[in-house]
């Protein structure tokens, strides 16, 4: 019996909530979106998903080996990064883009900082932005959805956000598509990266995460709310030039970003107040980049920029502690 007894500091019970469980639930929450993307974009989408996920896991294993640290692929974080990365890539991405993305995400985005929990930026977004800047052609070649079994061949198409950007630049006026076809956008029947398409599937996943209390409502609400308010103001000022808030909401990567990328715990603030500020910043930057920037979509950049501001937000958003009404004795 000696030596079988454990001694530890209190408390002696645990909620059972573990990191790998959190990661697993987020992966489950992404399932609807991945399935929808496979439905609309077929085998290429599946290929991107597989390469990114397996690539991320492989690079994670490799770097743990190289650094002689404990193997961490079992916690599911690498697989999650892989899925998120895939959802941020166009379905037509060549295999080497996906693989390179996986390497950037895991090696530069995460492992050089010491692995899970230490990366200041969202690894999947780091990879996406590096790819977008390095390979603009491959990263902005989109295909129109060709639902499984429809027999339609994949053809090149522009994303709704891309199309209005070009149209506004050329004519100063919004094209037709900014005011109609919202039903299709909502279901995901449009061109875009894997995870940008189906607002419905992403919302389902996001609500699941909220219900499971994996994420809190603060970040998504303030992110999406800010986008609606800011884009709404512009729309009211000039409806002919600026698309309405609903268009902003269901096209592009807003839902994916708000529920799955901005809520990435590691790279976002830890306090509720911080999360609200973070979401606000993300929303504001997203609209500004979408309406005035050089890129049609601003979610990734907005989140990365706010990731950079996270340490400062945390620093200045410490909650007021109990009993700090008077000076210390």
């Amino acid at each position, binding site marked *: 019996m*000696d*030596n*079988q*007894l*454990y*001694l*530890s*500091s209190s408390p002696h019970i645990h909620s059972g909530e573990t990191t790998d469980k959190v990661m697993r639930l987020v992966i489950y929450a992404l399932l609807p979106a991945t399935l929808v993307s496979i439905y609309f974009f077929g085998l290429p989408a599946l290929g991107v998903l597989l390469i990114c996920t397996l690539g991320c896991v492989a690079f994670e294993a490799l770097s743990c080996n190289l650094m002689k640290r404990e193997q961490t692929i079992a916690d599911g974080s690498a697989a999650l990064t892989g899925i998120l990365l895939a959802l941020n890539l166009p379905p037509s991405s060549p295999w080497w883009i996906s693989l390179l993305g996986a390497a950037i995400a895991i090696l530069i985005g995460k492992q050089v900082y010491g692995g899970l929990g230490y990366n200041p930026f969202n690894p999947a977004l780091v990879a996406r932005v590096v790819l977008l800047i390095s390979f603009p052609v491959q990263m902005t070649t989109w295909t129109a959805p060709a639902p499984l079994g429809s027999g339609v061949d994949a053809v090149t198409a522009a994303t709704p956000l891309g199309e209005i950007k070009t149209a506004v630049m050329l004519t100063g006026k919004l094209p037709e598509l900014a005011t109609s076809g919202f039903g299709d956008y909502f279901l995901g029947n449009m061109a875009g990266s894997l995870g940008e398409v189906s607002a419905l599937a992403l919302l389902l996943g996001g609500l699941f995460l909220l219900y499971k209390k994996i994420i809190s409502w603060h970040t998504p609400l303030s992110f999406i709310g800010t986008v609606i308010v800011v884009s709404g103001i512009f729309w009211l000022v000039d409806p002919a030039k600026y698309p309405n808030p609903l268009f902003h909401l269901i096209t592009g990567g807003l839902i994916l970003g708000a529920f799955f990328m901005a809520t990435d715990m590691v790279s976002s603030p830890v306090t509720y107040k911080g999360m609200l500020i973070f979401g606000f910043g993300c929303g504001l930057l997203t609209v500004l980049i979408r309406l005035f920037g050089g890129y049609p979509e601003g979610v990734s950049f907005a989140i990365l920029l706010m990731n950079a501001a996270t340490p400062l937000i945390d620093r200045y958003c410490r909650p007021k502690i109990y009993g700090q009404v008077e000076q210390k004795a």
Partner: protein
Amino acid sequence: MLTAILCLGGIGLIAAATLGVAAKKFAVEVDPREAAVLEALPGANCGACGEPGCSGYAKGVADGRLAPNLCTPGGSATIEAIAAILGIEAVAAEPRVAVVLCQGDNEKATEKYRYLGMADCNAAQKLADGPKTCPGGCLGLGSCAAACPFDAIEMTASGLAVINRDKCTGCEKCVSVCPRQVIVMAPKASTTHVLCNSRDKGAQVRKYCQVGCIGCNICKKTVPEAYQIESFLARVEYEQDENAAAAIEKCPMKCIHDFSTGYPEGSRLGSKKAASGENAAA
């Protein structure tokens, strides 16, 4: 050409005048020796001198408040440099290194309970005085290694701290952080040590450690002047230890070790033979 010279000269003159006035107005007195001493220090901010950091020590030395030979990490070179700056003579202190007086790793010593929690010796010590059955043995959780500013402490795979005598500068950080006082400072020239820290009776020690000192007196009988036994624990007398190594073979518990023949078993430093021999002679 002339305008060019005049213009530039004019600008320069105005700037110079402003600076001149400012230099008077915002003058701050600095002891140049303080900066020079700071320059000469190794900059590890280890605290071996007793000051919070190198700049504090530099100030103290320049003020004459502190002795110039307190910087152990810097060694004799630094001391000479400081002495030269201050224009005084300073005697280098005898180099000392830290020694972990324990060989009872997880395989050789027993634990009285299984510890769950923070990997820190001081935290573990608060739970029923630490998991090791031996009240003085190394807990092996690495607080000393984490505290060492010079990366001189190695934690072996089986949970024992071993101090690299080449890297150790004698700053005593590890000594102050160890909750079990198992690390002591000893002259670098003394390479033979009794690697045990248990003051329990021999019979008790045998129960929990395969390599603990049982206070059997054999070492003292072999080399009387070099050993001293107090509460069942042998210690080397560092002033007269020339022949201390002669008792190593005689020790029934194999707890006397001569670092000039390498590091204790289990250490990755072990292969580096005579790790301290030549240095100690120098």
